[in-house]
């Protein structure tokens, strides 16, 4: 069983903020094929299999960690307040395509790109661009889900380390235009598997008991205008376009495998 037990009902969406981000939508008892998202098994209990659509984003928390290891950010716990110390990203976007791009782009040749840097760009901008990238990359997947499943998303349930970052959660709500809900406990992934383990020895009786254990702590609501959301997101799309196919382009000009 993997990390998906907080989306009990078809149509529910969750986003796990870890090393990468993994956005899943419960699609019920039948596999639902998508063009740019993965169809995957969420879990099986008592002979019944539940499927999900998934968008896997390879590098998100890992990019913040990288910034810390490069000493661009000194204190990972304060990255949120650093990001909040400026009003906007000052035109700087960070596409952390360190291992290519996953969903919905699937470009193994993309590479990490920071674009828009000026002499004025300080640590705050890098902190903000890194956190924003996590929100944008998640939004790319959410957009695809809406298109695929022809449905509106009402709520995004979140877990994982990054969900503790309030700047990021507010940004996610802003850029998606959706409500973002944090559970009371941070380790919902562990609770999910504990529940499956407990079910099989009769420690808990049925799945509904978990639904009552899962309770929300705080919700973030969108607070920016549609116009602003659209402009910021368009900027992101342009930054992504710059990061795509980089390794291929280098090979075209004569770089060999060992140099990349």
């Amino acid at each position, binding site marked *: *069983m993997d990390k998906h037990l907080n989306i009990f009902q078809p149509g529910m969406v969750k986003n796990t903020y870890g*090393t990468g981000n993994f956005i899943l939508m419960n699609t019920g008892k039948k596999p639902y094929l998508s063009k740019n998202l993965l169809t995957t*098994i969420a879990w*099986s209990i008592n002979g019944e299999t539940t499927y999900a659509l998934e968008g896997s984003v390879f590098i998100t928390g890992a990019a913040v960690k990288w910034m810390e290891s490069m000493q661009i950010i000194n204190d990972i716990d304060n990255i949120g307040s650093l990001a909040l110390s400026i009003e906007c990203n000052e035109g700087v976007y960070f596409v952390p395509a360190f*291992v290519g791009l996953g969903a919905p782009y699937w470009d193994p040749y993309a590479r990490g790109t920071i674009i828009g840097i000026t002499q004025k760009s300080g640590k705050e901008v890098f902190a903000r661009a890194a956190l924003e990238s996590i929100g944008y990359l998640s939004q790319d997947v959410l957009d695809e889900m809406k298109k695929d499943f022809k449905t509106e998303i009402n709520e995004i349930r979140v877990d994982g380390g990054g969900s503790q970052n309030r700047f990021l959660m507010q940004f996610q709500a802003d850029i998606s235009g959706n409500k973002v809900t944090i559970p009371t406990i941070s380790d919902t992934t*562990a609770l999910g598997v504990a529940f499956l383990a407990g079910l099989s020895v009769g420690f808990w009786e049925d799945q509904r008991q978990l639904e009552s254990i899962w309770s929300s702590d705080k919700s973030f609501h969108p607070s920016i205008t549609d116009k602003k959301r659209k402009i910021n997101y368009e900027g992101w799309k342009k930054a992504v376009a710059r990061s795509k196919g980089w390794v291929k382009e280098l090979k075209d000009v004569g770089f060999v495998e060992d140099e990349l």
Partner: protein
Amino acid sequence: MKKDEKYIMALDEGTSSAKTCIFNHLGQMIGKGQIDLNQYYPKPGWVEQDPEEILNAQKKSINIALDNAGIAYPQIASIGITNQRETTVLWDKKTGKSIYNAIVWQDRRTSSTIDDLNEDNKNMIKEKTGLIPDAYFSASKIKWLLDNISNLRKKAENNEVLFGTIDSFLIYQLTGGVIHATDCSNASRTMLYNINNLEWDDELLELFKIPKNILPTVMESSELYGQTSKHFSTWNGQKYIWHR
């Protein structure tokens, strides 16, 4: 806290840390242990981890969590595992020792294997597995290991080697080599598992030249998998029921 009260243990083996959480009947977490994991980058785009280091970190986190909760091993009614998914380990069936580092899900070394697939095969993968063909999943990573580690393919064909994602590796270790299994949610990330008929797919195994005998048994997400072994008790001092 009563000594006969029972709890559930969850092993959360992520990419950056091995965690253990202990829950009571109300779903409240009463103990937690966490040990960070190293990643190794032998070449650009390559990402590896040491399976034995993961195992040791997981063991340490279990002990920390139990101490933290102030309970003893026999009070654990059962154990569940969640893990970093596609990360690929091959290990020696007899000793349980890994043959090579784990190839982490982020690793891109097999991108060209995927690029070289023809359109028919790409479509077949998509229809059978629900996945978009990519180096992210286990299939091309297993193939890389079998193709690049000397003698490994022969050993695999001789039934001397097993494959698993980290959940399977942990189950194998904790049951003393008795149980080689995974659940269907993890199997669905190997790019070898047919999500329509819920079976390992012979055509895909043939495509990636992977012998079926190295694959784990696929079970449900909530099922009794097995029991922790005496071997397991040598490092925790007690014996208790093990399953997911």
